[in-house]
């Protein structure tokens, strides 16, 4: 497969010389120490590294939950590193989809309501939300669980709900934080295969994990150590 020269618009995410420095008393902790990386559209990335390598910080920045100390973050060519809390919320709402290790569904809402939660904030009508939730539930194979509460579902099912929720706003990329961390190996495989299938259908996925078995399903792997990118594979 030959690679053509890429334009900025071909990248889901471009990071340019990104620093995140925490001050702890007199000490400086460089959680990210000059990271530059391009995540191309349609790809499936795994960010790997031991704890303390800066992958959580990387995840928070990629997820627009935090702002870098310096450097730029281009999301589909737009610099989002300079935005304030309100604007970042808007970016998350419109362009990002989160999948968490612990699923993070809201227990008092039904599966349908959980899936449609971003749409609620996007201001969709009840009818539109229901329709969208139904088609997404079908996509992840939970169309018969729409009226259930998250606590009535297995871990794998809960993660499917979370994936459906992450897809509801048709994001630029899915950001997955150890998506299989709380699941047994069989269920882990189901979830990773679902992600793989989504990627094959064109969804860009960035996944943070420390499990090589899981990371090998990604097309590209980025290894981090001490706040820097150690190497990129694939």
């Amino acid at each position, binding site marked *: 497969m030959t690679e053509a020269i890429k334009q900025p618009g071909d990248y889901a995410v471009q990071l340019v010389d990104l620093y995140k420095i925490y001050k702890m008393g007199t000490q400086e902790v460089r959680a990210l120490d000059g990271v530059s990386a391009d995540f191309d559209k349609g790809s499936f990335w795994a960010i790997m590294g031991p704890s303390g390598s800066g992958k959580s910080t990387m995840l*928070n920045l990629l997820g627009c939950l935090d702002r870098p100390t310096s450097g730029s973050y281009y999301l589909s060519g737009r610099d989002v590193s300079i935005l304030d809390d309100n604007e970042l*919320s808007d*970016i*998350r709402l419109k362009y990002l989809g*989160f999948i968490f290790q612990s699923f993070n*569904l*809201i227990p008092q809402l039904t599966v349908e309501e959980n899936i449609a*939660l971003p749409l609620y*904030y*996007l201001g969709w009508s009840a009818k539109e939300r229901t329709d969208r939730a139904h088609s997404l539930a079908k996509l992840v194979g939970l169309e018969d669980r729409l009226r259930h509460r998250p606590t009535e579902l297995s871990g794998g099912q809960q993660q499917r709900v979370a994936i459906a929720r992450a897809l509801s706003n048709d994001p630029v990329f899915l950001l997955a934080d150890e998506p299989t961390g709380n699941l047994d190996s069989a269920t882990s495989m189901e979830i990773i295969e679902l992600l793989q299938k989504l990627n094959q259908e064109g969804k860009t996925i960035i996944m943070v994990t420390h499990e090589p078995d899981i990371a090998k399903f990604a097309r590209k792997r980025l290894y981090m150590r001490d706040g820097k990118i150690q190497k990129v594979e694939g």
Partner: protein
Amino acid sequence: MKLSPGRFYRDVQLGIKNLMLHKLRSCLTMLGLVFGVGSVIAMLAVGEGASAEALEQIRRLGSRNIIITAQKPADEQDAANVRVRISIYGLLYEDEQRLSETIPTVSRIVPVKMVQKSARMGKRTLEMRIVGTNHVWFDLVQRPKIAGRLLERRDIDERSNVAVLTEHGARRLMATEAVIGESLRIGSNYYEIIGIVRSEGASEGAMQTPDQQTDAYIPFTAARDHFGDFFTQNKAGTNIRELVELHQLIVEVDKEEHVEATAAAIERMLGMFHKKKDYGISVPLALLRQAEATKRTFNIVLGAIAGISLLVGGIGIMNIMLASVTERTREIGIRRAIGAKQRQIIAQFLIETVVLSFTGGLVGIGVGLFIPWVITLVAGMPTMVSMYSLVLSLGISVTVGMVFGIYPAMRAARLDPIEALRHE
């Protein structure tokens, strides 16, 4: 984010749903406001009820009137050692003239002579208060006419033997209005009954009203002719003879704002001519003002108590909402990660407190209507629930909810989403 009714409705629904998840907790939180609002309404109702009665009584005396009443001086009352003596006291015919001629703010003045006599009609006898006065009396002391006619100027001028009875008195003499045209014997004279007015019974401890239930109003001139100025009373075996020219003067002042100054002028004027203080001046307007001032003070005290109880209710709400924010930290984190803005989180929590306080206020209104009803039923006290107290206390309740809800809501919104997501 655009504000649309549909969206607001959904937010309120979500708030109610969240509150329903903890029914007991929500109810207990509301209780503070329920009793706060309930007690405000109940206390105001009792206060209004009590003062409305007093105010109405005073108002009936006429706010532009000053009533001067003859009083036997203190040292003359102790006359037990004298078998027969004459007390001379009270208001003089000259007083009436002096007041009307020298005080420009006095617009009208009515002389009154009062005698206790037994009156007889047919076979019935009734101890009555005979009030000798003129036609103006009925203007100043407003009493609705029930039948016949009132005293007129010509009755006074012609010294006619006519009498106006009160409804109560008439009923005790005979059953109906048929008394009109009948003759009533007072002392040795006969009077034609020409009219009946409604009686206004003064309740115990209230101000002395110029009329009583069993009054007969006759022309002043006739009273003077028939009874003179000497009165004999037999008290405890002693004949007490009194010389009283006028028992009462009812003064009407031209404008309400002149009432107090005029009362002071009358006081000075009478003081110059009376060696002893053998009269009393009462000013209904002053009493009215006093009653209103008392009512205001009462309302302020009530307001303070109510304020404290609502404050306590508000603190209760804040306490619970803070606990709720902590408990739902993770939910807040999830919502924020998904893209909810800070103000949407604020709105979510604020709507919950407003729903709580509004519901609490409504239930409180129920309590506030119930308590006065029970008080009236059990204690027989008059109560009056005014519309404004309902609106006011509901408004305050919602405001308290907002004021005490805003801090927990802001705290929820300001949580760092990363920290919040990590919260167990």
